[in-house]
């Protein structure tokens, strides 16, 4: 494959049938971050149209009162799919795609840390999208809302498999997101170019880096919840069904513990985009880089502690309501302060109103509204009226569309030239912009008032109450403007790709490293890197008389941490969230007494024996590592084989324990103890099994003879994973087996 093909050749190739076949394979099998990024963004664009059509139908049905255009079931499927599609198949892929393209360039790297993992992460998106949409052919799309509250999402109330497809699709998409986050973290930590210290990172990179940590902590919690829902639906578990001892509110806690960080996962990349564009088009640096960077960290940390504000009406009790009110109001501060930083960047500048900047200015005002209505929801009694109403719908669409989509559109207009070598049309861009401003505001401002007039969300129709009719009609009208904008955008992308003005390296006179190479960049991104001493290397080159002050110390010969180690440690962090959720669910039900089997059914001494085998395998693995480091093949192989054996013994012990329980009639469906016990130990066992498979592969590779210590770093990484699986078992052992004996 010719890695240095220019975009011009690629353009000609599209028009030549013979070459098309080559490029098809090249793009499907690519591990180049730039191509993967484009695939992400094209996929997002496709699903944007799908989700937009779903929205169009929703608004058509709601245009007039008492409408019968759509059957209620159809409407309920539409809004479920619309929300799920827009969040998981549009916004997340497009922001990951943009980061995928730009981030390695901004830090002076050749690619992401794990190119094959990058490809895997991308392919999870179309796969998850197909899984989700297959439900339409398999009995109907899910009709449970994008957050699938229990008990409605449980089998007695949603018997068609739509909810199962929803859960499995999101599980796959979540794995893809976590993969990209691991890659981002490892890339930023381990692959920065010479002189690119952490303090000199452009805000786009920094904010996406911080964002990756939110993904690491939040997505696994969702996956744990999805696993529990699937266990309920498919294996007769009881996690969320009250009539068998489960708790619908537990689903809400688990989902929103993911769901709230999720909205920051979508919003932070929008902040990242805007933090790049506004300074460039104001011709001055961002006002208060440190505060913006620090506030991003504050948001990431706080975002993990505010989820209860989605549950103010569920009856958590006054103390919890107050706690979440406080945390939610606190998070407004770092968020709001950013708006001031961006505005202050414009003040005193020389503002150019190119299309990227137009989108950012609209973003500022619309995000301000979104933030303010957000704080209004943190004012708990106000939420007691506005939650689950059109006021809430207005709020989150101001965030998702008014802020995030607008920022992304600005980002696309800004970076398209770098990706394709051509400028997007300014004129078409301005049409897109003004149609979006008109349509978006027409649709969503009025919804604030509809909510205050008492219209709830997720209703397929409504009675002809005063003002509800014309307000809904106005809201529907806006959709046509937005549709027109979308069509013009697609037209702009297609025609500019072939006939746009040639862009050159740095059409916007920007200052970060992605503009220090050709448009598009060569396969390895840079021929040479400029000196990096500040946050704006290209400003320094263009203005040698007044460069930016040097940031931090020069990083002469800093050895960056090994990317394999960073990667596996990040993965382990994500797994901690997954197991943490399962463990907490176990403890939640353990605290509630119930009839039936309990920890007394467990044979603790026998389990201790098998546990000792597992713990011993950590020791033997360490010995094997030592053997590898000392290049003693026999020692390495022997200890590794022993490790695998001990792990295998543990698994056999587990299977034996399960078998004994099944024989006495205790399985997943018996009661809450059995459901949570089998879920927790089952997933742990699965991780042991996967670890054993990895170790077997290493054993085979070592046996075949190729064991230069070049692979040592990967082997060590496997070791971290193996030790982690042991540590999880320590927690499980203590909680499930030992705790009942003491307490």
């Amino acid at each position, binding site marked *: 494959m010719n890695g240095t093909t220019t975009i011009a050749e690629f353009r000609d190739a599209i028009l030549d049938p013979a070459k098309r076949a080559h490029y098809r394979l090249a793009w499907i099998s690519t591990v180049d971050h730039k191509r993967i990024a484009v695939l992400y963004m094209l996929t997002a664009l496709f699903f944007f149209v799908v989700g937009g059509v779903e929205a169009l139908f929703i608004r058509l049905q709601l245009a007039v009162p008492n409408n019968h255009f759509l059957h*209620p*079931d159809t409407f*309920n499927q539409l809004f479920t799919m619309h929300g799920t599609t827009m969040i998981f198949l549009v916004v997340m892929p497009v922001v990951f795609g943009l980061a995928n393209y730009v981030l390695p360039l901004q830090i002076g790297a050749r690619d992401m840390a794990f190119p094959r993992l990058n490809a895997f992460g991308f392919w999870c998106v179309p796969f998850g999208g197909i899984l989700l949409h297959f439900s339409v052919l398999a009995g109907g799309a899910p*009709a449970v809302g994008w957050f699938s*509250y229990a008990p*409605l999402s449980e089998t007695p*109330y949603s018997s068609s498999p739509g909810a199962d497809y929803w859960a499995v699709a999101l599980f796959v998409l979540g794995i893809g997101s976590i993969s990209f986050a691991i890659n981002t973290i490892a890339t930023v930590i381990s692959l920065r170019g010479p002189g690119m210290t952490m303090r000199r990172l452009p805000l786009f990179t920094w904010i996406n880096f911080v964002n990756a940590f939110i993904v690491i902590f939040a997505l696994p919690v969702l996956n744990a919840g999805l696993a529990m829902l699937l266990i309920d639906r498919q294996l007769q578990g009881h996690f969320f069904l*009250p009539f068998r001892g489960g*708790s*619908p509110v537990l689903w809400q806690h688990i989902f929103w513990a993911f769901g709230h960080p999720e909205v920051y996962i979508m919003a932070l990349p929008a902040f990242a985009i805007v933090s790049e564009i506004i300074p460039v088009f*104001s011709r*001055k*640096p*961002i*006002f*208060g880089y440190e*505060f913006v960077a620090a506030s991003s960290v504050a948001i990431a940390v706080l975002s993990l502690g505010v989820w209860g504000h989605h549950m103010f*009406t*569920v*009856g958590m009790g006054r103390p919890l309501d107050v706690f979440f009110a*406080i945390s939610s*109001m606190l998070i*407004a*501060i770092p968020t709001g*302060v950013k708006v*001031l930083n961006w*505005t*202050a960047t*414009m*003040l*005193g*500048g*020389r*503002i150019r109103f190119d299309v990227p900047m137009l989108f950012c*200015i609209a973003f500022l*005002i619309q995000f*301000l509204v979104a933030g*303010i209505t957000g*704080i209004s929801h*943190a*004012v708990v*009694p*106000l939420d*007691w*009226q*506005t*939650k*689950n*109403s059109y006021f809430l719908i207005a709020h989150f669409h101001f965030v998702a569309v008014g802020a995030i989509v607008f920022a992304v559109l600005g980002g696309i207009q800004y970076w398209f030239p770098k990706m394709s070598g051509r400028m997007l049309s300014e004129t078409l861009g301005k049409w897109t912009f003004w149609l979006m401003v008109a349509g978006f505001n027409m649709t969503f401002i009025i919804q604030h008032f509809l909510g205050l*007039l*008492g219209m*709830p*969300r*997720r*209703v*397929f*129709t*409504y*009675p002809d109450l*005063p003002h509800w009719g014309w307000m809904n009609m106005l809201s529907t009208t806006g959709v046509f403007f937005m549709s027109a904008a979308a069509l013009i955008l697609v037209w702009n992308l297609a025609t500019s790709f072939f006939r746009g003005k040639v862009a050159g390296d740095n059409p916007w006179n920007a200052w970060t490293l992605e503009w220090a190479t050709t448009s598009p960049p060569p396969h390895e991104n840079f021929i040479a890197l400029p000196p990096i001493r500040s946050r704006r290397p290209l400003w320094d080159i263009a203005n040698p008389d007044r460069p930016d002050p040097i940031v931090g110390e020069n990083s002469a010969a800093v050895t960056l941490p090994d990317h394999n180690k960073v990667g596996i440690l990040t993965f382990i962090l994500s797994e901690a969230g997954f197991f943490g959720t399962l463990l907490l669910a176990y403890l939640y039900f353990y605290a509630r007494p119930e009839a039936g089997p309990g920890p007394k059914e467990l044979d603790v001494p026998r389990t201790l024996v098998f546990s000792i085998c597992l713990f011993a395998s950590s020791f033997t693995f360490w010995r094997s590592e030592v053997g590898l480091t000392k290049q003693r093949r026999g020692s390495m192989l022997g200890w590794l084989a022993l490790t695998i054996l001990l792990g295998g013994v543990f698994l056999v012990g587990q299977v034996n324990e399960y078998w004994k329980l099944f024989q006495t009639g205790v399985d997943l469906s018996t009661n809450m103890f059995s459901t949570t016990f089998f879920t927790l130990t089952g997933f742990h066992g699965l991780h042991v099994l996967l670890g054993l498979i990895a170790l077997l592969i290493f054993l085979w590779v070592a046996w075949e003879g190729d064991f230069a210590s070049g692979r040592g770093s990967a082997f060590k990484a496997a070791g971290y994973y193996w030790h982690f699986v042991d540590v999880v078992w320590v927690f499980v052992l203590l909680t499930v087996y030992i705790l009942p004996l003491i307490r």
Partner: protein
Amino acid sequence: MRTSNALDPQSPLARAIYDLGIVSGVVFALIFIIVTGAIIYAIFRFRAREGEPDPKQIAGNRKVEIAWTVIPFLIVVFLLVMTLGAMNRADPPPAPSPDLVVTGHQFWWQADYPGSGVITANEIHIPTGKPLSVRLESKDVLHEFWVPKLTRKMTNVPGQPNHIWLQADKPGIYIGQCSEFCGTQHAWMRIVVVADEPSKFEEWQRAQLLPGQAAASDATAKGLALFQTSTCINCHAIRGVAGADLRVAPDLTHVASRKQLAAGIIENTPANMRLWLKNPQHIKPGALMPDFEFTDEQLDQLTEYLSTLR
């Protein structure tokens, strides 16, 4: 006109929320005006003009940034204090035993009055002028009780009774709706709260406690017989009718006294009652009442009978 306007509070509970909304609204409006003002000022004052040099490359101002972090923090503290006060006023601690138990079903509301023993559906009568302690439950999925003019909304969680206070200052009809998506007909789970002067409420209560009227004419007797034999009694209760005491579906003892049918989807007239009985799925597809394929004659009889249940 019946509206569910949250900006027209009709109880001290709703008013506490409304007042908080006004105060917060002023704060929010000020923030919006100031910040948007600054943005618009920047757009006009600092647009790039031909031939101008680069602006001063200011990277920040520590003092300004600290100030604009502290000030929002103070605003947040203020809002928090107001919030705590309003939480107590809009949602005082529950009473030990409820005056009213509202149970959500797919897709209707059951209202029980533990004190008097009245059981009814969808149309909830209350006396004016005093706060009523309401317990919220659910028989199936999550529902949410929301009557904006009178009180906060709260979720009906199966297996976890919740509590709100409900009050109306003046007599009148106050409407609301289920606001937690609960399935196909979530849109038509409307709530009608009828607030009466205490004496009139007592009257209503006494009437509700009477059993369903005995069949007066031949047609109504046939209607009653149909009710008892067509599996209606598997779901519906009518006090005074032997064997009809299950409440999987709305209690029909005084169904003719209600203003609407099927949780607000149609007005309660004999013609509409007949249409509903003819094919409930046609009016409210997804409701849990099947189509019994009654003949025209049977429909007339059933309607006649049910219309006597005032």
